[in-house]
């Protein structure tokens, strides 16, 4: 993996719609993911952000990093706001008030805004069938408020509200599987994306935008500040997350599963966790137990892929 050169900026569109000069931390993979999303979507896009890191780093008045129309309302409701934008455009185009053309509407939320406080809003927007994308940046905790646990925080990870204490060591629950919840909404498209795989990432974003109806994308987003990892290791951590089975890459199109960057032989989970301070307190036993569960989940994912093929 270390030998693989993923930096291929020459092959990406030159235009940026989330511009440099924003206030993200060094090595923030969430900002990178957001940039890639907009490289894929192009200029005919309107975005609604939830309160969170990506909102505050990109819009401290009078500065803005946004080169497309952008709206922030509150924390939990970006999906609803996005559904409103989509509905507004639809009505105005139908009534001939604005020119008819394809405009991508995208709503953003972090893992807290998606898996916890905003789950209802995301569910509602997806269920109602709006022609929009929702992208969850999953950096596995509430980073903007200072690294508190969310339901998307992985087992045993230390955060400021699930500290590695003397008797209780970090997060005590398994990561909530939001992409599966979205699959259960029977929407046309659900996919996991990871900026360490920029071409897979952008292909999926484009597909999500092209599909008629709601699409949900779940983006792995390394947070050096929250995870206690070195800023220059973001891309490597993203690839290790896939290779250890911690964050499988897959897409579900009209209920059919397909897995990308398939793992034949799992890298030891230890290779991934040892690079992050949030896992520093883990015992080998705990790491092995997690690895076993990740393998089981991966096997289940492959079975779903197999069943999808058999169904064809």
């Amino acid at each position: 993996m270390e030998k693989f050169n993923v930096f291929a900026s020459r092959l990406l569109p030159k235009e940026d719609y989330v511009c440099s000069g924003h206030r993200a931390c060094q090595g923030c993979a969430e900002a990178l993911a957001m940039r890639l999303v907009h490289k894929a979507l192009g200029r005919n896009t309107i975005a609604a952000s939830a309160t969170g890191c990506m909102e505050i780093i990109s819009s401290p008045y009078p500065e803005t990093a946004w080169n497309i129309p952008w709206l922030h309302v509150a924390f939990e409701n970006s999906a609803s706001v996005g559904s409103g934008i989509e509905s507004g455009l639809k009505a105005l185009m139908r009534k001939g008030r604005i020119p008819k053309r394809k405009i991508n509407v995208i709503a953003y939320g972090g893992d807290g805004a998606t898996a916890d406080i905003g789950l209802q809003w995301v569910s509602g927007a997806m269920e109602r069938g709006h022609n929009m994308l929702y992208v969850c940046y999953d950096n596995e905790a509430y980073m903007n408020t200072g690294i508190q646990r969310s339901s998307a925080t992985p087992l045993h990870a230390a955060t400021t509200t699930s500290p590695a204490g003397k008797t209780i060591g970090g997060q005590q629950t398994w990561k909530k599987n939001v992409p599966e919840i979205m699959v259960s909404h029977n929407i046309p498209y659900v996919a996991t994306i990871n900026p360490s795989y920029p071409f897979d990432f952008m292909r999926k974003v484009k597909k999500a935008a092209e599909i008629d109806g709601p699409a949900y994308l779940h983006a792995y987003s390394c947070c050096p500040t929250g995870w206690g990892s070195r800023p220059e290791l973001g891309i490597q951590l993203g690839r290790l997350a896939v290779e250890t089975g911690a964050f499988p890459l897959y897409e579900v199109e009209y209920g059919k599963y397909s897995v990308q960057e398939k793992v034949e032989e799992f890298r030891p989970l230890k290779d991934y966790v040892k690079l992050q301070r949030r896992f520093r307190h883990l015992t080998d036993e705990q790491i092995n137990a997690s690895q076993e569960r990740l393998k089981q989940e991966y096997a289940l994912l492959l079975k779903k892929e197999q069943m999808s093929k058999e169904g064809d």
Partner: protein
Amino acid sequence: MAVRKGIEVSLAVAEAAAACDVDCIAAYPITPQTHIVEHLSELVNDGELDAEFIPVESEHSAMSCCCGTAAAGARTFTATSSQGLALMHEILFIAANLRLPIVMTVANRALSAPINIWNDHSDIMTERDAGWLQIFAENGQEATDMVPICHRIAEDKRVLLPIMLNFDGFIVSHVVEPIICLDKEEIATFLPIYEPQQRLDIDHPITMGPVGMPEVYTEAKMAHEAAVQNSYEPICEILEEFGKQFGRTYKPVETYKTEDADIVYIMMGAAAETAMSWVDKVRDSGKKVGIVRFRLWRPLPVKAFKEAVKGFKVLCVVDRHFSPGGAGGPVAQEVKYMLYGEENAPKVVEVVAGLGGRDLDYDAFETMYDKCKKVLDGGEVPPFELIQARGGHYGKI
């Protein structure tokens, strides 16, 4: 052509919104508002109204969605009540500061607990500070007329603020009244097609809802305050224009039989109409009472109110909400704020009544009168009183 017909007020309000050719409605059911949005979804599904009806999963989501539709440049309408309004609380402030001209009817209803679906003003009074314009309609005709008026005010380039149209839940919303319903063509002559000042437009990208650091937050608030205050003149103009065009003129503050009154009741909403009947009745027996009603509540029509109550001896402020352990009812607080330091200011008797659907009947107005008469005769002004409570019926707290 406008037709006068017997119609449930909620349905007339919905038809008025449809006649305003609204582009988007995002709403969630809550009693006693539900008939409004039910009827709007009927009109959309029957092809009579070309709009997006977005049946969202909560009121919080309704207001969030309205922010999106309005920011996209669509004429936006919604309705709610009570708990629903309370659930929207967070987003109300944001919609106002984003200067999104959303029109929302609020069928006023008590807040829980105990859960109660009937009328008072506790839902709306707790949202006084949200930065919306707020209007109270007393009856069905007024509620119906106010829908195009509210859209016109909200979308006026000198205003650009969201507006709440209040009327009493059930007492107004569910009553069948003879109402003159304006049709789409008539309303179009009063309410032009909405042309947003700013919207989410891919050809002219703007950033809406940025972070306001301490260096700019105060200025943003000041700009908002100026916008709300400066809306007063346009509101008056628009009300007058509606009157000229359709023959029904509404003013920010209304008076009833106040010319020679000693005691004047300060009210808003449908109860003021009951009070007017009571005034008609007791005037014959020599009680010199009158009524001043707020139609406009935000911006607070300070000058018009002061003018309306000038020279009276005793004001009886009838509040439909109060702040437990605080300074009584919100209307009385603001009335006293307006009168403080005024020369020969009237004395203010404060009562809280008509909570959670308790009838504001002639008995209640008599009780208030007795309190005011004592003050008129030189007695001390009593502290605020919650009348109509059993176990000390009409007794002091």
